[in-house]
């Protein structure tokens, strides 16, 4: 019993960290540009699909580097063509535009790759089992948890310790002021969007060997991102990480204790949190209010 709890706990942490990596991009874009980017999920999906194409050809590590760059480029195109036009208008428009585009993109995935699910196997160096006494755990799941934690750590360092990060944080608090103080706000927003897309793509790669690749995976990962953002607080990196962990661990452990409500648990927790703290656990005043 204890062993399965630990196993599920680790699963949950891994899941949560991957979710957090996706949610961070979404949260940053929402915080600094006021846009609910529905196409964010599709970036995650593209990460997985591009990786599936490249992995067989150029190997794991090269694909891991190249794929997020490809997804980031895609994000750049989306930002320049579409999202840019809705800055400053009703947040509803950003939502609708990205929703429509996400629908179209997902359909493109279906056209190119077909509706069936694909699978990717874990890279050779991490496809074994870790054994601590009687406790067994897949190596790959540890790998993605560690890698996701590293990535989140790097993002947090950038946001918290660098000048650029300070400007981003200021932009989430009051983007107009940041622009008025002489920073190039449109370029800032583009950079944040592109970074977010790349992060989502990277998460898609990490997730692929564990949860498979299917055409609607983008839409499926978007929901937890919403919950994490609301739960953890908009535009807060620690909030997103904590939110991600809460969602991941609760989902994972729920399988053991109340399997019927697995999907609903994150929403219930979110509801409880925003009842007591409407801005989320770590939320601060931001552009979306």
């Amino acid at each position, binding site marked *: 019993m204890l062993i399965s709890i630990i196993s599920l706990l680790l699963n949950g942490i891994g899941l949560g960290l991957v979710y957090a990596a996706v949610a961070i991009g979404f949260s940053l874009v929402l915080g600094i540009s006021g846009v609910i980017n529905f196409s964010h999920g599709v970036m995650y999906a593209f990460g997985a699909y591009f990786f599936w194409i490249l992995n067989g050809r150029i190997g794991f590590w090269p694909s891991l580097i190249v794929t997020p760059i490809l997804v980031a480029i895609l994000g750049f195109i989306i930002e320049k063509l579409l999202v840019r036009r809705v800055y400053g208008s009703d947040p509803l428009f950003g939502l609708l535009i990205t929703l*429509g585009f996400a629908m179209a*993109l*997902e359909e*493109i995935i279906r056209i190119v790759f077909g509706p069936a699910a694909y699978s990717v196997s874990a890279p050779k160096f991490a496809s074994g089992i870790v054994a601590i006494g009687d406790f067994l755990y897949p190596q790959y799941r540890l790998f993605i948890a560690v890698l996701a934690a590293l990535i989140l750590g790097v993002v947090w360092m950038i946001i918290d310790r660098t000048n650029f990060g300070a400007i981003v944080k200021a932009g989430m608090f009051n983007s107009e002021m940041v622009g008025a103080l002489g920073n190039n706000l449109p370029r800032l927003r583009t950079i944040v969007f592109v970074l977010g897309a790349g992060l989502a793509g990277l998460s898609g790669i990490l997730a692929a060997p564990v949860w498979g690749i299917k055409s609607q995976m983008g839409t499926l990962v978007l929901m937890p991102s919403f919950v994490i953002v609301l739960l953890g607080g908009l535009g807060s990196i620690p909030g997103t990480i904590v939110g991600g962990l809460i969602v991941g661990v609760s989902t994972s452990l729920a399988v053991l204790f109340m399997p*019927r409500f697995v999907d609903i648990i994150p929403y219930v927790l*979110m509801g409880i949190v925003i009842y007591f703290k409407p801005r989320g656990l770590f939320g601060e005043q931001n552009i*979306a209010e």
Partner: protein
Amino acid sequence: MKKQIRDPFLWIFLILLFYPLYPYIGRFTSLGTELLIWFIFTLSFNLCLGYTGLPSFGHGAFYGVGTYAAALTFLHVIRKSGAVWLPLLIGALAGALFAGLLGYGIRKKKGVYFALITIAFTQVLYFVSWRWDEVTGGEAGLKGIVRNNFLGIDIQDPVKYYYFVFALFMLSALVIRRIAHSSFGKSLQAIKQNPIRAEYMGYNIGLYKFAVYAISGLFAGLAGALYCFLTQSAFASVLDWTKSGDVVIATLLGGGSVSFYGPLVGSVIYVMAQELLSGFWSHWVLLYGLSFVIIILVFPNGLLGIFKRK
């Protein structure tokens, strides 16, 4: 007399009245019925979205609740006698109840938070309907629903059901129009234009939001219940949040944000596109998504917005 002739309602009434007689598409009565159901749904939803400016992205929840409430009422209360008025009533009231609850709960939230929470709400209901097998039939849904009669009138036949829904639609549309053009409706528009000013003028914004939510929930539930009897089943898919997204698209595409009749145009496009395009190309969603994006970028106020200058 002239004013009556220019009333769009007369034309809508006439066009829809003769729908089953039209060449080619007239034969697809259930398509027409589905269109009417969407009309009811989007018209009332527009009271929230276009008139009050509430970014409710989870309105499909109330439609779905109406569907399930009607189905469950039928299966457990009415059974074979097939009398339809009670499930319809319960469906509508269930929609109003859930909408009222949510509307009251989030009346102080704004913009992004409001939208995200509405999506979360419909997702929770979706999962509940998916997992609570004993009650909702889970993934397989509920089946075996029969529409026998409404207060004695037989509505089994698809054409007869079409006219039944048509009558309900005309009634609902008249009621919704009355609400939209009343001082209540004007207050809603004031809230959309400038919520702070409306509040300072003494309007109880929370109450208005709650009220408009409950009203649109009532009609959404009714539409869902009618859909249940159209398909004679109930599935969890009606509660999926993508359905809510479809509703918003249908409402705004036609110009719901500036015109009362916008949702009707948008619904026609949406339902027809889905039925007709899907016959030609299985990946029609691509065109639909792209055209929607382009239309909203070029005409942010939707199609009817081209004619109305704000």
